[in-house]
């Protein structure tokens, strides 16, 4: 047998089949069967007949949208400063922003819970605020990272050219900088939006289980041994994520076309 380069992919293919494809097939199987293992649309009916289920989904959507917006608003200027040689001469500052991700996020979140209570933001009575703080804190590095890498690639002379041609600062920002970093913004947004939809540890710990996101709602059913309904909700989440991926890819492509013109 002669060694071929494509053999190198074998370990990953095994991993992919075992841990990605087969589990997804399991989700499909459980989502469209009942407890006796027969094919049925029981779960579809159950999901759409109770408004609670849809409400939980909407709540998660709102949290995800807010989280994405806040992270972008906070992360964009930071990434700009980090990427700009005028303000940041060493990579240490950049490390500081990424460092929180080195600590396990469950430990970090538990510490955040005590910290917030200590400074007087009660995780019990202000649970939606504390959840928001926790989400932003955890996902901010994931926004800074892609924005930082796109901004590094920007030629600063182009910004100077913009000023030379008479544009003021805000015009430069909206007409030059943001369009040029749009791919970074989109990938940052997808990196925050989708995980927030399914996150539940942060909301559980920081809201004393008061804020129920879609992830913890699915967990509630899995915990009670109702695998079929839980899987159906996981399936719905998969669909949502698929849609958001498609949208982001499409807008990325559209943007490329735009920049060529």
């Amino acid at each position, binding site marked *: 047998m002669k060694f071929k380069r494509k053999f190198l992919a074998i370990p990953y293919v095994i991993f992919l089949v075992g841990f990605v494809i087969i589990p997804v097939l399991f989700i499909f199987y459980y989502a469209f069967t009942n407890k006796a293992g027969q094919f049925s649309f029981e779960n579809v009916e159950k999901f759409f007949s109770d408004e609670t289920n849809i409400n939980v989904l909407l709540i998660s959507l709102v949290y995800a949208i807010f989280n994405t917006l806040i992270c972008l608003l906070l992360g964009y200027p930071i990434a700009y400063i980090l990427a700009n040689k005028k303000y940041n001469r060493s990579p240490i500052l950049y490390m500081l922003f990424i460092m929180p991700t080195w600590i396990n996020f469950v430990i970090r979140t538990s510490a955040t819970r005590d910290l917030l209570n200590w400074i007087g933001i009660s995780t019990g009575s202000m649970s939606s605020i504390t959840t928001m703080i926790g989400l932003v804190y955890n996902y901010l590095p994931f926004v800074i990272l892609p924005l930082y890498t796109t901004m590094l690639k920007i030629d600063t002379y182009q910004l100077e050219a913009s000023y030379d041609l008479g544009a003021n600062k805000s015009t430069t920002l909206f007409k030059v900088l943001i369009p040029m970093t749009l791919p970074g913004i989109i990938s940052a947004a997808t990196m925050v939006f989708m995980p927030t939809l399914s996150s539940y540890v942060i909301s559980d710990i920081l809201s004393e289980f008061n804020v*129920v996101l879609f992830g913890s709602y699915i967990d509630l059913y*899995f915990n009670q041994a109702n695998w079929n309904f839980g899987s159906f909700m996981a399936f719905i989440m998969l669909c949502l994520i698929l849609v958001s991926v498609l949208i982001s890819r499409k807008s990325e492509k559209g943007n490329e076309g735009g920049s060529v013109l």
Partner: protein
Amino acid sequence: MKKKYILLILLTLLTCSCTKKDQSNNVLVIYNVEDYISNGEDDSVDLIKEFEETYDCEVKYYTYDTNETMYNQFKLQKQGTYDLVLGSEYICQKMIKEGLMDPIDNMELNIPNYYQNCSPSLRQKLQSMDCSNETIANLDQYVVGYMWGTLGIIFDPSVIEYDELEGLSWDVIYDKKYANLTSLKNSMRDAYDAGLLHGYASQTRSIQDSLLVKYGTKYCDGYRSELNAYIQDLFDFKLDGSDESEKENLAKIALVKEELCKLKDNLFGWETDSGKNDIVEGSKIKMNLAYSGDAVYSISLAKELGKELMYIVPNEGGNIWYDAWMLPKGSKNRDLAYKFLNFVSDSTNASSNMDYIGYTPFIVGEEMFTTTSSYYGASDFDINQTYYSGDHVIYNNVLYMCDISEDEEITNVYPNTLEGYISKEYDSSIEYEEYELVSKDSEIYYVTSEGLEIVNPYDLSHIYSELENRDRLIYPYYESINSLETQYPSLDVMARCGVMNDYGIYNENVIIMWGQVKAYINMTPFYIILIIVLTAILTLLAYYIIHKKKSARYRRYKQENRGK
């Protein structure tokens, strides 16, 4: 190349055979709740290690967090994975009904310690619980009791108004005065319990009043048994299958839902296992729905820190639960499993278990009584028992205290010899500490600043079987009265506690109800935000399209001009 493959195959075969060798006769696989056995931490006895050494075997000890996790995990594994599984009474009923468990074979011979030392009244409770649809079977035939207790409220008496005579009502967790000070267990069944008992609280109170009129006193068997039957009725779903009882059951679930949704606004939050430490720390919560064993743990921890906590089963009823071992069908090592059950049912081991985890074992008997009484107060002296420094004993109606150094123990010495003991007979010339125990004229008293106050002995005869040389009475230390009541609930508390049996076919309804309660929130702000976001997206889209058209027109115009 081929050689390499052969080597690989050989290697895998070798490892396979190695693992097979491991699964010899001497491995016992146990599936227990986390932190539910004395494990050698904090100077406790490591029971598992001791068992391994005594019987020369290996114990594979796995743990879980909730009964539901255990059920899921158990069903996922192939038959015969576990030799012993612990579960609460309802999950035991469910699993036995599903035919997953074997009955206990010849308890007298196989588990003599349990047979002799188990509390008769608790075994009677197990016997009264059914676990099978077809044959006449009760829980006692299938399980070996491990720990039991109640579900009640642990609170900080300096914040929560509490009157010793009136007890505590379930209303207290709904009280707006205590908003954001309470946490509940993030568990469907425990939350259901609180909602149900509060929902029916006024009805319960009126039943209690009418029973009081009927019997004249709360402290008689008639009152207790009738109240218990009523509370048990509240917990049980009517399962005769008629439309009427179905309506009633669904109404019950709807009521609990309403109660819990109302309660949500008043809560600090839900907790899984953080509550027992948070209540001691005391900055977040002042009240918590707790199991009696966790309460014992929290109370003693608080005492070490100089704080006071109390545990009470509210007046309008509570939940009593039993955790027990089951023998899974097809398990490989039944013999060793019996040996383990016998081992943990041993008085000494049961008392070190109680010492470490705080929960109350099913095991009673001479040694357990000595451990309990010397921890919580004074009791009659027994020459066969071992006593340690600080233990109080009563001999010939005189109170003595064991006065030896910390690490010593004393046996076979009568207290009146005063060798290792000092008399605590009241002497007005001596200065006593506040609420110290003394004896005077064959009675036991607390010394208070206003004189002597008589001690009410705590009777354990409803749990303990007859003891050889002593009464089943404990004269508790003043600060231990509540802990003792927590560890061993009195007859009156047990009368107002019901068993929450498996929900049966209504489980699905309760799960849906629980999901609705957890997700219950005022949706208006969310709808508004979503509408704003949607309009924003649509406006942006519209702007983008118009802009594109405009620029396209502009380009076309330019091109046309260029053409000219």
